[in-house]
């Protein structure tokens, strides 16, 4: 996964001299795959900053508004809280507020999610905050292939994008072709086809969903797993088409449940796919608590393949209306 991100950054920086990378310790590369870029691109294009998330995020805004394409590495999702104002009030608003006078091609890159016993301050799933923000695109890949294609597309996009890696997917392996490719933002990917129940997820939860689908197969239940990949704008069409086929829907999101991703997906499916539904849509989110440190507790907080599979079995057991 890290290698795919490195490759995406390097390719885009080679292609376009206005692309640069800025953040804390991006030279050595802490998590987000920025390693090795300083050696190739030097001090001017790979910029270590003081620990000042708000100013760094705003520097991205000012640079983007004056012709550059910053990639801003903010390390951990929760650090975006400190940069929230610049992302929401500037990156997410300037173009509209100013009547279209500027484009804002910025990528904010960060780590998201739990599962590494990093404690609450380094384990939160913060993507719903950015999903609830006008004009911010939100991307969350689950595989190296998707990460590379999506990150390249995000860098070329003329709008602000928050790009989430999952801390625990850093070591994830997967095929990445040598030829260049892009993955358009806003397009989901059906990671596994199925006929009985639609499971909608992103990031790490795609893997839990695929595990669940594998387990369900043994029970004769055929689950379709949709990887949203882009969380805003998100691919309602693909999800609704799947639900039209299966009639059953499970939304799986790693975030805190209230106003989280699962609520959004379930609400849209209920609203627009109501007549297709054979049973109530189901939401599976993290348990409604901060993320505990203890591995035993943390595991219990995050949605598991077992939970997903159990929900699917329950849905299958409901008499179709």
């Amino acid at each position, binding site marked *: 996964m890290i290698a795919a991100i490195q490759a995406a950054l390097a390719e885009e920086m080679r292609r376009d001299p206005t692309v640069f990378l800025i953040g804390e310790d991006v030279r050595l590369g802490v998590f987000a795959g920025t390693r090795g870029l300083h050696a190739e691109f030097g001090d001017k294009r790979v910029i270590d900053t003081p620990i000042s998330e708000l100013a760094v995020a705003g520097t991205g805004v000012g640079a983007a508004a004056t012709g550059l394409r910053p990639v801003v590495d903010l390390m951990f999702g929760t650090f975006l809280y400190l940069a929230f104002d610049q992302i929401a009030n500037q990156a997410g608003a300037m*173009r509209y507020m100013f009547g279209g*006078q500027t484009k804002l091609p910025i990528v904010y890159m960060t780590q998201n999610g739990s599962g590494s016993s990093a404690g609450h301050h380094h384990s939160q799933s913060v993507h719903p905050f950015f999903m609830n923000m006008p004009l911010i695109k939100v991307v969350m890949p689950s595989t190296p292939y998707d990460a590379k294609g999506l990150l390249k597309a995000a860098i070329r996009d003329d709008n602000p994008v928050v790009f989430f890696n999952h801390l625990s997917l850093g070591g994830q392996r997967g095929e990445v072709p040598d030829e260049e490719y892009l993955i358009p933002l806003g397009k989901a990917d059906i990671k596994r086809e199925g006929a009985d129940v639609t499971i909608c997820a992103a990031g790490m939860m795609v893997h839990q969903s695929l595990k669940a689908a594998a387990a369900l197969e043994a029970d004769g239940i055929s689950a379709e797993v949709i990887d949203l990949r882009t969380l805003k704008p998100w691919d309602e069409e693909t999800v609704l088409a799947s639900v039209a086929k299966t009639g059953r829907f499970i939304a799986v999101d790693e975030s805190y449940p209230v106003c989280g991703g699962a609520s959004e997906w379930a609400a849209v499916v209920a609203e627009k796919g109501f007549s297709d539904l054979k049973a109530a849509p189901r939401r599976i989110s993290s348990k409604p608590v901060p993320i505990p440190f203890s591995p035993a507790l943390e595991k219990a907080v995050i949605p598991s393949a077992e939970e997903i599979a159990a929900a699917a079995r329950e849905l299958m057991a409901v008499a179709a209306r």
Partner: protein
Amino acid sequence: MTPSPEVVMDIYTRMLRIRRFEEQVGKLFAEGQLPGFVHLYIGEEAVGVGVCAALRDDDYIVSTHRGHGHVIAKGGDFNRMMAELFGKATGYCKGKGGSMHIADFSIGMLGACGIVGGGIPVAVGAGFSAYYRGTDQVAVSLFGDGAANEGSFHESLNLASALKLPVIFVCENNGYGEFTPAERAMNIQDIAERAHGYGIPGVIVDGTDALAVYEAAAAAVERARRGEGPALIEAKTHRRGGHAEGEAAFLAGQQYRSPEEERAAQEKDPLARLGAFIIEREIAPASHLETLDAKIVEQVTAAVEFARSSPDPSLESLYEDTWV
């Protein structure tokens, strides 16, 4: 570096343009003709104009909630400004921004900002951009004394100084953040003092003396263009009126400035001061200033006319200027 007569006249003209524009806006607001919040720049004209006169057209400024004066100082257009204040389709931001969000990217004015301190990091980004692209442009961040207590001030000055970026930080110290006096909000007299904490020059200047502001700004700009990094200029100035238009009714009799203080603020009028200087130094006769004034008043009146007769934004425009 005393400015030439042309520069002096240019500065005076811009200041007068601000004064007459703002007076008109104040009147319109009092008459209930303008939606939203309005913060006037009257009394502080020398700061924005002194700074902007030291800039090139391709230099950047980033402004505040009290931004009308900055737009005009950088060369903005009355009509599009006034139309924006009325929320009309012909405004700078097509009616989507309003008083606190006027921008004119074509003259390097990267926008007013309703968030105190919110524009400071953006200016750092514009300065970074100049550095990165290898131009000798500079970026100016204008902000108030109140903003100097925001985290964004600190992070921005430190970041710009660590990266040695061509950014001039201009603190318009009018002694108040809304209704709280600066003495109560900080334990120091001079915000310029904070520059030392970032290893950059900190200069105090009389913000009612446009030429002094100009000279301080010109020196900082030159230094920044040479690649020697940022500077902080603190301009001591006065807010002629209240924090926001209509505040008297809103405060319902509560006072926060003494009558003496208000009088002092009225007396230190930067426009009158520069006008007297021009006449005294015989840069231009009083009659010329009067003609200029009349012309500007006419332009302001025309801008009101323009704004009034402009259409509201169409409902279709609601979904324009979103994703590219």
